[in-house]
């Protein structure tokens, strides 16, 4: 490639950068050129080394070996961090300050007076369309404005390299479009722009080149006509051995009696009078926009929301029935224990008699065996069961979070966004785990935000809208995800109308 030795030394050159955490190799000698003026996409499964590379470029982490140069000059991001700006999924700003203060913070100068916005800063804010929010507290702004503030902050300190880390995962479509326009503008002005995202469509639409990172190396550089969603997806799952879709027989247990049933199920505020049942072997998806009551409905089945009505799971009713469910929250912050090892995280929901006996004494040996079994069964990629949970990659942490719930043998498993922020490979493995679990005669109910997930993993889907549950849509009746998406969208606005 000409960029390596061509006329310009411009940009960042990464050569042989390696990083290990214990015996885990995060980066295995990365070579990558970041050229000014283009948006470079980065794709890779979780645990592939993507986030380590980002942390190294952002100066939050030092490489074990390898070199970085900026415009031909050796560059140490951990010292010259102000060259780099990271725009996070959730902006790292000061919610208690105004937008203008946020742009200035760190460059207020040393005068004792209250710092004032310089003309240059004002221009930057105007260019990004946030000048009119200058005096508004950041906590009162939308996420999109906060992200723009983060960008403005970086532009104002004349950063050269912009890292966008899953920047639009919580934005509306219009907001994302504007963000991508802004990204291209930054690139157009000669800055280096990196885009890390799980959304393959965004990479194809907005990046000039896409580097696919797998197992700590750049495995493919896609550009031009070779840059398609299918091509990226293929590169991501090569050698994964998990390509078999998790699509189940879906109805293998059909005709048998239900494993879980609610009727007249009402919540004070979120939903009312819902009737719902699940047969053994079924994976049922639940969709609904924020505030529709879908998440509350899911949690209520586990007894985490106060509800009235009748509930039955297996042979139990009422609270006893709710004890036969297990709930997995949407974020791992709410399911994993950072002070615990992988093994302890897997067993934490168990009690007597599984891991404790007389006088609540822990059965240490039994716990070791159970943890080892769980690691095998749930395909958790870990060296030992005694290492800290934080040493695992995101996808594997998510498997632990789900395994933790499955370990207490619920008859009805309740999940919120089971594969949020998880790479394709782990996603498939998780779907397979759920399918296997359902086939053992249990039911799975999961709240999803992406139709693709419903299409790939569920047997049927219900949409919750304004506290009402729609009739089921049979996912197997669709041969295209687009059609399913259309029907779901229609239900999201008019629940209760027959599909």
């Amino acid at each position: 490639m000409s960029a390596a030795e061509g006329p310009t030394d411009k940009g960042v050159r990464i050569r042989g950068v390696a990083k290990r955490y214990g015996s885990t190799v995060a980066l295995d000698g990365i070579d990558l050129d970041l050229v000014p003026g283009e948006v470079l996409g980065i794709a890779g499964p979780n645990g592939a080394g993507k986030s380590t590379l980002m942390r190294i470029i952002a100066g939050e982490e030092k490489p074990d070996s390898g070199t970085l140069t900026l415009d031909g000059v050796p560059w140490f991001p951990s010292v010259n961090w102000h060259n780099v700006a990271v725009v996070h999924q959730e902006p790292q700003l000061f919610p208690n300050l105004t937008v203008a203060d946020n742009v200035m913070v760190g460059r207020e100068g040393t005068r004792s007076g209250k710092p004032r916005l310089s003309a240059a800063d004002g221009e930057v804010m105007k260019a990004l369309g946030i000048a009119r929010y200058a005096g508004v507290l950041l906590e009162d702004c939308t996420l999109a404005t906060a992200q723009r503030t983060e960008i403005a902050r970086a532009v104002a300190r004349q950063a050269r390299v912009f890292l966008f880390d899953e920047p639009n995962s919580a934005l509306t479509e219009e907001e994302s479009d504007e963000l991508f326009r802004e990204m291209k503008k930054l690139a157009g002005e000669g800055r280096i722009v990196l885009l890390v995202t799980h959304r393959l469509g965004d990479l194809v639409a907005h990046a000039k080149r896409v580097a696919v990172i797998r197992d700590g190396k750049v495995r493919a550089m896609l550009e031009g006509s070779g840059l398609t969603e299918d091509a990226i997806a293929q590169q991501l799952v090569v050698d994964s051995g998990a390509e078999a879709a998790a699509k189940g027989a879906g109805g293998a247990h059909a005709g048998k009696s239900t494993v879980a049933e609610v009727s007249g199920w009402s919540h004070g505020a979120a939903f009312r009078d819902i009737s719902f049942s699940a047969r053994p072997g079924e994976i049922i998806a639940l969709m609904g926009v924020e505030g529709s009551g879908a998440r509350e409905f899911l949690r209520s089945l586990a007894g985490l929301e106060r509800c009235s009505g009748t509930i039955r799971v297996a042979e139990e009713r009422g609270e006893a029935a709710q004890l036969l469910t297990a709930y997995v929250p949407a974020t791992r912050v709410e399911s994993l224990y950072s002070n615990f090892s992988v093994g302890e995280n897997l067993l934490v929901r168990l009690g007597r008699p599984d891991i404790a006996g007389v006088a609540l004494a822990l059965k240490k040996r039994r716990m070791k065996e159970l943890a080892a079994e769980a690691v095998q069964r749930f395909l958790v990629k870990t060296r030992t069961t005694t290492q800290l949970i934080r040493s695992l990659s995101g996808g594997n942490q998510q498997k632990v979070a789900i395994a933790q719930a499955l370990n207490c043998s619920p008859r009805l498993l309740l999940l919120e966004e089971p594969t949020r922020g998880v790479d394709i490979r782990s996603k498939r493995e998780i779907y397979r785990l759920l399918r296997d679990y359902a086939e053992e005669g249990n039911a799975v109910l999961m709240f999803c935000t992406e139709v693709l997930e419903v299409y790939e993993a569920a047997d049927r889907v219900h949409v919750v809208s304004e506290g009402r549950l729609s009739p089921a849509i049979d996912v197997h009746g669709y041969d295209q995800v687009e059609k399913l998406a259309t029907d779901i969208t229609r239900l999201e606005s008019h629940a209760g109308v027959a599909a």
Partner: protein
Amino acid sequence: MSNVETAPKQAGAAANAGIDLALRMGGLLLAIIVVAGVFIAINPNLANLNMGASLLRSMSSVAIMALGLTLVIVVGEIDLSFGATYGLAVNALAVMWLFGGIPVYLAIILAVLVGTAVGLFNGLLVTRLNIPSFIVTLGSYNLLYGISLWVSNTATFNPAYPPPDVTIPDAELDFFVGLTQSFGSFGLSLEVVWMFGIALVVAFLLHRSLFGFRLMAIGGNTRAAELARLPVKRYKILAFTLCGTLAAVAGILDFSFIQTSQPNTGLSFTFPVFAAVIIGGASLSGGKGTVIGTLGGALLLAILQLGLSILSPGPHVQQIFLGAVTIGAVALDLLLTSIRKRRAA
């Protein structure tokens, strides 16, 4: 893919775990050896078994309270009221026994129950009303001190010198004093035996029982524990209750040993007990803490206090050292932790 440790790896892991444990406990152990060594170098006469016995006695009440506080800190809460609980138990015992005519055996049980009740009160307010434990226990600290002043009528008590119109049966007095009687040729107090007995029980609870496992989980991530339907509130209440109970036990044992009480007795323990727990490696953010660490912390403080009071360089030195060692021990611990992490990496 999913590999679990194999046999040869396990042997190496065991050796590694040994070094890890040494590094984890090493900072504290090193601090104890250095501090004790300095005192002995200054005054070699300090190195004798009688001194050892009195050292262990002087750490025991701090250690007993610190063990209770460790439970509360592991579950992610804080208790500022144990010193006042200690004082209330002592004063309640003295008043019930010396003025109320209640036999000492029953009075002791009631005084321990006072501590239990205080812990229950703290725990209920924290979990049912969702008031931060710092505020609840800051409040109960003052509340309990007030009650102590009230029931004691700001008097001091000594069972050997009961009020004029009261006679205390010798058997009761002997029993009470016998709780912390010294025995053996070095004059080791029974209070030390109580301390080790309680430490064993708390060690079992914290490190070998489901109760401790869940305390660690709740302290590590309260929200996750709630969503997993672990009995978060019940366990928090239990931790506070045990802390209050142990504070009362410590007070009664000290009263038996010292045999005099003050209206404000116990309050001055607040700082050293906290220091012992923190020096022992417990994290104020919860989910971390050990019995052996807490005992080590209490021992280090006792060495300092005893050594400095014998060398008597002046009260200012004692205070300055206490402060410096608290910070120093934690700094050393952080340093060794980072070495341990680097080794693991």
